[in-house]
């Protein structure tokens, strides 16, 4: 059995049995309000808004990985980055957001892939402000980038994540690019002698 179908079965099972559900509209409206408020606070400096969302996500990711490991109960390292991608898409996104993004566009060195979201539960109802800049600058769901970066950092993977397209901007798909920078070696604490 391929690891892909195993991962999706695992995600499905955890979603069904071990996850507490919350009203989707509550999540949508809460997240939307946060983004709108950040936009207001930073006076529509969307580059800064993206950065803030990413940072919020990063802080979530640092802790969410623990929850993920506890729920998925797979106390085993992924053998390679491809397996990591499968687990992110089919287990991680499945159990926390009930979506399974498609993994695609691998580079030859297996260090870079895209997650294509068919549906994005954070972006329901959303229409970006029509001030002529938001459509080009704001990544509405940028918090997800931060979450991935934070979570993977805690399991010794330094990654770089960013969106390259978003249906909210009028693109055909919502696509996030994930790049493995390096595996973080266990660092010894500085000697105190």
């Amino acid at each position, binding site marked *: 059995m391929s690891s892909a179908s195993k991962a999706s079965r695992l995600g499905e099972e955890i979603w069904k049995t071990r996850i507490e559900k919350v009203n989707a509209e509550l999540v949508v409206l809460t997240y939307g309000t946060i983004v*709108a408020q950040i936009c207001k606070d930073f006076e529509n400096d969307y580059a800064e808004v993206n950065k803030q969302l990413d940072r919020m996500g990063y802080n979530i990711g640092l802790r969410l990985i623990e929850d993920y490991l506890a729920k998925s109960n797979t106390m085993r390292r992924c053998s390679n980055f491809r397996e990591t991608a499968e687990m992110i898409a089919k287990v991680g996104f499945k159990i926390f957001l009930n979506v399974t993004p498609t993994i695609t566009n691998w580079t030859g060195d297996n260090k870079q892939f895209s997650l294509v979201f068919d549906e994005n539960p954070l972006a329901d109802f*959303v229409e970006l402000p*029509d001030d002529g800049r938001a459509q080009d600058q704001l990544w509405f769901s940028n918090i997800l980038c931060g979450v991935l970066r934070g979570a993977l950092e805690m399991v010794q993977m330094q990654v770089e994540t960013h969106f390259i397209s978003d249906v909210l901007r009028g693109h055909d798909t919502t696509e996030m690019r994930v790049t493995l920078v390096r595996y973080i070696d266990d660092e010894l604490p500085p000697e105190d002698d």
Partner: protein
Amino acid sequence: MSYYFAIIGTQDNPLFEYEFGTSKQGGDGMARFTEQARQLNQFIIHSSLDIVEEVQWTNGQMYLKLVDRFFTSYISCFLTASNIKFLLLHQPPSSSTLTGGTSRTSTSIAANPTSPQTEEAIRNFFAEVYENYVKAIMSPFYRTNMEIRSPVFRARVAAAGRKYL
């Protein structure tokens, strides 16, 4: 038949307006208001707000049906729960008053602003617009009483107009 649809906010401020014509019976969906009438429509709609406010507390319905009439302009109203008003001004083509009376035109919603069929068609139109309105205002970047500028919403209103009127 020509239609002028407006959404009015809680401070009697316009949030959205859209003009269209009938698409039934081979209509091309274009409004046939004269330049003068187009200016006048806004006043007619605005003046009908007084009547809406009188009627709105007399029954618990959201769809208030025909509330006002100004010569050949008829105004139907739908209230949302937060007291946003959908107003539809409809004006039968002036020629139909001459040819009216044949069995075909007497049942067509275009010629008969007061018939039950028209009432029902407008009810359906309002219901669909309401549904899309709710989606439009759920956008986190929308604030109460702000003008609705969403092109998606406009397209959906146009589609509802084509479908029912």
